[in-house]
């Protein structure tokens, strides 16, 4: 649309933010308290809170299923539950955690809340669409819960044909429908973010003044848009095959079930970066704030986000090395997978360099961030083991894989989520949480996580296949250790739920900027007013304008 289109007739042209006069005390939480004002809200901040509440619920369901899995694996002979129960437990764990927690976790909550604040906008570009996406999410969740209540699914979260289309006797169809529907919510969220970041930035907020959080969310949103439709199609094909016998993957008629895996991983590998990139954004905010130092190599980190989002589309075949894919494809996908190391290394080394010569406060968010960096490095490098063809032939589909992706998903995304939750909790709620309890849980989660998942690297290397309800006795020691770690981890998760909820009523009132952090979200109140800013925010000279600034070369003014 050319600019001439904007001179159209009756457009009202009021000055900026006339709403400021509507009542200075009414922040977004207290502006209106009816149930209707929450469930029909178009305020991005309230929608973020709706998402936060719902995904916390799903996290609890998924974590419970994980508990069932770890319980079953205490004994090797499957004496605690039947194989079917075990299979359903790990399937529920995977489906719920991937599609109903990890994928929406940071984008739909923090992204929704913070992107307009960070770019100095009043809302996302399409507020009604934003609300719609939450309802779409909840209806997808409804179908999935229906399948769970009716008796569960036992296909694994990957839904590989023909197990899912012809052989499983469980409630696959509602689960498939639920996951398909939830994809649309991702697409709508991603679309909203892309358009918002392109068109809604405050005057003067150029691309290289945007926080890395916004950059990573932009990259994530591109993946939402470019990858999600393909899995929608793949799942529609499964639904047609299972529900109506209109199938294209059925080997009985010469169909190729590996084709489903191609379509599945074309989405699901990039989906890893849907989960990881926003976490990187969170860490890139926390680290400079608690080092009181400008982010090292800002432009490189920004470009690395876009780089990761692009490279991730070229590597999906590394999930299929032993699945009957051609050798040529395996070689190509393996080689390209190593390229992922480049942008990942950029991120990690720049965070580390940011801490160098900073002025560090080791508060809860920073503890999570430091844990994240360490665990992400391990998770990322073990990914390269799996991308190495000869090693993959041994550890593919073993506990090594399980450990690897939990280092990325829990050590990465969940720690970033918790770090971000503590970092922006004062902004979301206007209350401070209990710092001592926060630190205790952060340390507990770090320890519990490592005790749970490090033994799984060894188990995988020793050759214990994943998704096994029963296993040879020599693996029991490590499995018991892992289950013991899971109880520590569970405790680490329960504490924040308690003290954060407690702080809602009894926490100290938070100032606008409790961490002395930079970024437009800290320029407004805690919690922010209904329309975000009472007066137009002043866009800073440079991003991460912290007291300590590393001297960078001239072309690095950003």
């Amino acid at each position, binding site marked *: 649309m050319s600019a001439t289109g904007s001179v159209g007739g009756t457009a009202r042209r009021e000055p900026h933010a006339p709403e400021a006069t509507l009542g200075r005390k009414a922040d977004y939480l207290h502006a209106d308290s009816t149930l209707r004002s929450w469930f029909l809200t178009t305020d991005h901040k309230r929608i973020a809170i709706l998402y936060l509440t719902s995904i916390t619920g799903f996290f609890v369901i998924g974590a419970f299923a994980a508990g069932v899995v770890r319980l079953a694996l205490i004994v090797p002979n499957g004496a605690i539950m039947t194989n079917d129960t075990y299979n359903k437990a790990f399937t529920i764990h995977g489906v719920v955690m991937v599609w109903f927690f990890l994928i929406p976790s940071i984008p739909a909550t923090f992204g929704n809340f913070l992107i307009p604040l960070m770019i100095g906008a009043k809302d996302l570009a399409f507020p009604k669409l934003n609300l719609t996406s939450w309802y779409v999410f909840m209806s997808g969740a409804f179908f999935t819960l229906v399948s769970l209540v009716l008796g569960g699914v036992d296909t694994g979260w990957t839904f590989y044909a023909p197990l899912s289309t012809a052989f499983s006797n469980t409630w696959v169809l509602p689960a498939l429908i639920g996951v398909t529907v939830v994809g649309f919510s991702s697409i709508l969220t991603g679309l909203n973010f892309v358009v918002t970041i*392109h068109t809604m930035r405050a005057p003067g907020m150029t691309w290289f003044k945007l926080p890395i959080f916004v950059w990573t969310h932009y990259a994530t949103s591109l993946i939402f848009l470019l990858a999600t439709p393909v899995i929608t199609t793949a799942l529609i094909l499964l639904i047609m095959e299972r529900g109506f016998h209109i199938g294209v993957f059925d080997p009985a008629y010469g169909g190729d079930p590996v084709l489903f895996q191609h379509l599945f991983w074309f989405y699901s590998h990039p989906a890893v970066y849907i989960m990881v990139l926003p976490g990187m954004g969170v860490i890139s905010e926390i680290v400079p704030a608690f080092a009181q130092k400008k982010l090292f190599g800002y432009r490189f980190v920004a470009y690395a986000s876009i780089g990761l989002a692009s490279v991730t589309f070229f590597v999906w075949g590394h999930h299929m090395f032993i699945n009957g894919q*051609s050798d040529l494809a395996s070689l*190509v996908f393996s080689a390209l997978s190593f390229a992922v190391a480049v942008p990942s290394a950029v991120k990690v080394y720049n965070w580390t360099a940011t801490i160098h010569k900073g002025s560090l406060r080791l508060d809860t968010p920073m503890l999570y961030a430091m844990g994240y960096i360490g665990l992400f490095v391990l998770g990322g490098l073990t990914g390269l083991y799996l991308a190495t063809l000869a090693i993959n032939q041994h550890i593919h589909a073993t506990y090594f894989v399980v450990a690897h992706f939990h280092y990325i998903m829990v050590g990465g995304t969940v720690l970033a989520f918790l770090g971000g939750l503590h970092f922006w909790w004062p902004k979301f709620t206007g209350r401070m949480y209990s710092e001592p309890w926060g630190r205790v849980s952060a340390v507990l989660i770090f320890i519990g996580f490592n005790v749970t998942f490090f033994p799984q690297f060894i188990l995988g290397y020793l050759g214990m296949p994943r998704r096994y309800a029963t296993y040879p006795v020599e693996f029991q020691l490590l499995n018991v250790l892992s289950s013991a770690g899971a109880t520590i981890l569970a405790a680490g998760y329960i504490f924040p739920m308690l003290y954060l909820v407690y702080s809602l009523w009894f926490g100290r009132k938070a100032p606008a900027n409790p961490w002395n952090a930079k970024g437009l979200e800290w320029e407004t109140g805690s919690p922010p007013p209904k329309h975000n800013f009472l007066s137009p925010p002043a866009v800073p000279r440079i991003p991460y304008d912290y007291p300590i600034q590393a001297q960078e070369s001239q072309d690095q003014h950003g």
Partner: protein
Amino acid sequence: MRNPLATLSADDRALLRRRLRTPVLTFLALLALLAVNVTLGATLPFAQVWIVELLVVAVMVSLILLVSMEVIHEPPLVRLFSGLGFFWVAIMVGMTLTDYLAR
């Protein structure tokens, strides 16, 4: 119902002609291209005809994108977006074919 054209002034007719020239020409071009493809499909003149057919389709698709959807008049960002999807389809098809063409 009255003939809407009958009530038009000369200015309006000129305006109408100017405004509708591009859509009508596009329409005719699309029909012509479709006719080519349908003829090729119905007669199958030679073995590799599908290459020609796909080229004709590519022309039709670009015509719709550039002219009907007015991409040529859009700012660079929208032009980029209109091409992005096709680029990603190329990635998806190309990388999948490394499997199927080498089995």
